[in-house]
């Protein structure tokens, strides 16, 4: 009889435990079932009725404990995100016009800072889009008034000769050109360059070829 009561009570309690949170079930199911078994065994010592009553009590208890709320983790010390921000937002709402003026000023200042940084980053900080871009330098001559001066080929050759710290050098002179393609004239951005330019920059043309090893001056190589 006791064995039957125990088996029935354990089956019912086990079933009811599936309605409890899984974390609780994983942590305590074995001990609960052990205790139920022990309660019924103790009851059996006083008679079958007591054993049955212990079994019924265990089942009712497993059902009634379903209403117990899940434990909440202990509340942590008030943090910046929970309390300070809440208080700050209350003050901001109460501030009205003052809050709007401060907010607008902040927005303008942030926008100005972002714009200045964007320009500085593009002009000075962003590396050149070439392999070893940080090793590239531009050398040029200036007039007494600060304007750009043209560089002659002998002067360029003298720079290369007299600046051994330069691993390689090439010249580049922006020069736009008007081209006529299929009867239509178009203005294209171009440059006069020396044949070392592609090697110095470390780039290859997307289509076509670079210069052939012809003399720097004179008739172009026949291809």
């Amino acid at each position: 009889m006791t064995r039957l009561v125990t088996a029935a009570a354990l089956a019912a309690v086990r079933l009811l435990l599936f309605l409890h949170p899984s974390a609780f079930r994983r942590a305590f199911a074995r001990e609960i079932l052990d205790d139920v078994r022990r309660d019924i065994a103790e009851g059996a010592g006083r008679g079958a009725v007591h054993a049955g009553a212990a079994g019924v009590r265990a089942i009712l208890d497993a059902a009634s404990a379903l209403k117990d709320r899940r434990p909440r983790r202990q509340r942590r010390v008030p943090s910046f995100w929970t309390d300070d921000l809440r208080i700050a937002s209350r003050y901001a709402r109460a501030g009205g016009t003052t809050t709007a003026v401060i907010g607008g000023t902040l927005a303008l200042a942030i926008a100005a800072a972002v714009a200045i940084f964007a320009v500085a980053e593009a002009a000075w900080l962003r590396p050149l889009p070439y392999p070893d871009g940080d090793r590239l330098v531009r050398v040029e001559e200036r007039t007494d008034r600060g304007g750009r001066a043209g560089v002659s080929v002998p002067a360029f050759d003298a720079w290369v000769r007299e600046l051994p710290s330069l691993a390689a050098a090439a010249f580049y002179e922006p020069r736009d050109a008007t081209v006529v393609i299929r009867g239509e004239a178009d203005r294209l951005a171009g440059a006069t360059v020396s044949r070392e330019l592609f090697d110095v920059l470390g780039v290859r043309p997307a289509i076509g070829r670079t210069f052939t090893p012809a003399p720097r001056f004179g008739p172009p190589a026949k291809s």
Partner: protein
Amino acid sequence: MPDRPLSPVAVLALSSLAESPRHGYAIKKAVALRSRGDVRPGATSLYRTLWQLLEEGLIAESGDRPAAAVDDERRRYFRITPAGRRALASELARLERLIEAARATRRAPQRSRA
């Protein structure tokens, strides 16, 4: 510290653990004994309470085990934490204030109706 009053089972379980670490079944027996049978939690209710106390940091699993002769090695032992002692003291003080207030109300002379 929990932001709500502790249940009678939790108070009695904490006070039994304040004496010494115990396993679940021993806590269940201690709760019934201390309350002179007024509070007799079932196994599931008791472990739901212990789970809550564990999650709130008021009790913890104990590595200390009794002598091998009386140790039940299949069972986990629990101990009260310093936060648990503070919570118990605070709850007992709250209950004392409550009882004091109730007694004072009972002692106060009944206001007669005009």
